[in-house]
C-alpha cells in the first residue's frame, strides 16, 4: 500500500472504492451501517430515493457479469442516478481505442462515476489514478485481485444473521487461487475482527503464503467445517484455469463439494453463502443451495443496499471544497 490511500479524500472520506485493503474497521462498519436503511427502500411505493439525482454513472464491464452489473444498475437507479451501460464488445475499444482514451471521452460527457470490471488485476486502480478529481471509481472486480462490493455485501449478510463478527469461525471453500472474492472477503473478515478464518481447497488452488493474511489453511473440508458459523463456497472458475490444476469435476465434488452430510459438521445454525453463479453438483449440492441454511439469494438482495451505500458515500460530497459549518446548523444537524 502506498502511504496515501487514493480511496480517501483529503478529509478522510470515501472517494473511490477499489479494494478492502487500506480501510480501517470503522470505514467498513460505516458502509455496513449506511446500507441498513437502504435495505428498506424497496418497501416504498416509489422504490427510489433522490440522493444521486442528476448524477451520471457509467457501468464499464470488460468482463461478463449478471448479478454485479444488474445490482449496480438497480442500486444506481434506486438512488435516482442515470446509468449508462457501455457494451465493450461493440464499443470503440474493439476498434483499437486505448482504455484511457475511452475514459477521457466519457469524462468529456460529464459522467460522475465509473463502475469498472476488468480481467486484469489493478485495472480499477489505474483508472482511478487517471480520472478527473470529481469522478469516483468503484471496482466491480479486477482479475484475481479484488471484488470489494461483493465482500461488503457478504459482510452485511453475515452481520444480519450473526450480529457480531468477533467470535465467528468462517470457512471459505474452493478455488482461492483465482478468487478475487475470497481475497476481499479475507481482508474484510480480518479487518472486522473475525477470530478465525479458514480457507480450504486442493493444494493447487490455494495461493502460497496465504497464511500471511491471517487465515488457517486446510486441505480437508470435513476438518475445516467443524464448528463453523459461516460456510462460503466459491465457484470453480474454469475460465481462469490454465493447465491441470484439478483431476476432474467429479473428484473435486467428492472432496470439496458441500453436501448435507458434510454440512452437519458445522454448527446447526451455520449459514451457507456463495457469491454466484453456482455450479450445482460441482461445488455445492442442489439440496443445500436451495435449503434452509442457504442465504445465497439474500446475498443478491443485500448487494443492492450495499452498492447504494458505497455509491452514496463516494458521490455524497463534493470532494473539491471544504464544507462550511453553517450548513449543519439548526436542530439535530438538519436544516
Amino acid at each position, binding site marked *: 500500500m502506498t502511504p496515501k490511500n487514493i480511496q480517501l479524500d483529503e478529509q478522510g472520506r470515501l472517494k473511490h472504492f477499489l479494494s478492502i485493503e487500506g480501510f480501517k474497521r470503522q470505514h467498513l462498519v460505516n458502509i455496513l451501517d*449506511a446500507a*441498513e*436503511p437502504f435495505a*428498506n427502500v424497496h*418497501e416504498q411505493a416509489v422504490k427510489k430515493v433522490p440522493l444521486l439525482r442528476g448524477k451520471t454513472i457509467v457501468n464499464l464491464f470488460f468482463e461478463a457479469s449478471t448479478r454485479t452489473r444488474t445490482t449496480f444498475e438497480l442500486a444506481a437507479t434506486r438512488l435516482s442516478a442515470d446509468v449508462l451501460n457501455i457494451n465493450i464488445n461493440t464499443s470503440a475499444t474493439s476498434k483499437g481505442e486505448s482504455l484511457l482514451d475511452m475514459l477521457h471521452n466519457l469524462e468529456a460527457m460529464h459522467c460522475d462515476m465509473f463502475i469498472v470490471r476488468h480481467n486484469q488485476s489493478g485495472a480499477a486502480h489505474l483508472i482511478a489514478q487517471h480520472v478527473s478529481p470529481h469522478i469516483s471509481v468503484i471496482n466491480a472486480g479486477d482479475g484475481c485481485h479484488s471484488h470489494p462490493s461483493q465482500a461488503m455485501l457478504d459482510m452485511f449478510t453475515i452481520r444480519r444473521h450473526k450480529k457480531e463478527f468477533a467470535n465467528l469461525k468462517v470457512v471459505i471453500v474452493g478455488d482461492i487461487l483465482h478468487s478475487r472474492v475470497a481475497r476481499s472477503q479475507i481482508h474484510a473478515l480480518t479487518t472486522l475482527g473475525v477470530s478465525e478464518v479458514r480457507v480450504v481447497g486442493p493444494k493447487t488452488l490455494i495461493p502460497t503464503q496465504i497464511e500471511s493474511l491471517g487465515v488457517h489453511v486446510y486441505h480437508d473440508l470435513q476438518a475445516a467445517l467443524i464448528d463453523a458459523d459461516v460456510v462460503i463456497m466459491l465457484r470453480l472458475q474454469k475460465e481462469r484455469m490454465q493447465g491441470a490444476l484439478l483431476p476432474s469435476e467429479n473428484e473435486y465434488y467428492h472432496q470439496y463439494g458441500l453436501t448435507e452430510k458434510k454440512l452437519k459438521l458445522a454448527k446447526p445454525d451455520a449459514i451457507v453463502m456463495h457469491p454466484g453463479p453456482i455450479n450445482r453438483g460441482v461445488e455445492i449440492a442442489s439440496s443445500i443451495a436451495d435449503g434452509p441454511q442457504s442465504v445465497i439469494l439474500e446475498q443478491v438482495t443485500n448487494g443492492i443496499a450495499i452498492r447504494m451505500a458505497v455509491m452514496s458515500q463516494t458521490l*455524497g460530497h463534493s470532494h473539491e471544497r471544504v464544507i462550511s459549518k453553517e450548513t449543519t446548523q439548526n436542530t439535530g444537524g438538519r436544516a
Partner: protein
Amino acid sequence: MIKAPEFDNTVNLDGLLDTMYQAIHKKIQDFNQDDVVMVGIHTGGFWIAEKLYQRLGLSSPLGSLNISFYRDDFTKIGLHPEVKPSNLPTGLDDKHIILVDDVLFTGRTVRAALNEIFDYGRPASVTLAVLLDRGERELPIYAEIVGQEVSLKAGQEIKLTGPEPLKLVQNEC
C-alpha cells in the same frame, strides 16, 4: 407583523405539548379515526410524536421519518453514516397525516419530509404540527399546529434533547 416572544429557558414543555394535543385532538374530530396516521420526524420530532401519540390513542401505528435521503444539502455535507431507516405504516393512500417535528425553522426539513411521504403513497391530507416555530422560513411551509412561536437572537440555537427526559436547551454559538 408582531414579533414572537424571545425564547428563554422558562418555556414549559408540558404546557406546549398540551397545547399541541388539544389542537390535534380538535383537528382530527372531522376525520375517520382509523385514517389518522401520526408521523414524527427523526429524532426530536419523533420524541414529541411519541408523547402525543400516547395521549391521542390512535389506532394506526406511529410512524417515524428519517429525511436524510431527501435532504437538499446532501451533495454539500454528505451522508451521515448512521441513518436510521424510516418506518412508515404501509399504504399511506387516503390517510390524514399528522406530521410532527420539534422546531420549525427554514422549512427545508418539512419539504424533504413531504417528498418522502409522497414516495410512500398519496395521503388525503398532511397537517404539520411543531413544538416551536422560530420563523425565518426559506420555503412556503406552514404549520397549522404550533406549541409556541419564538424568535431567536442572532447566533442563538435551540435543541431538543431526549427522549427521557425531554428537554429544550439553548446554546449561543
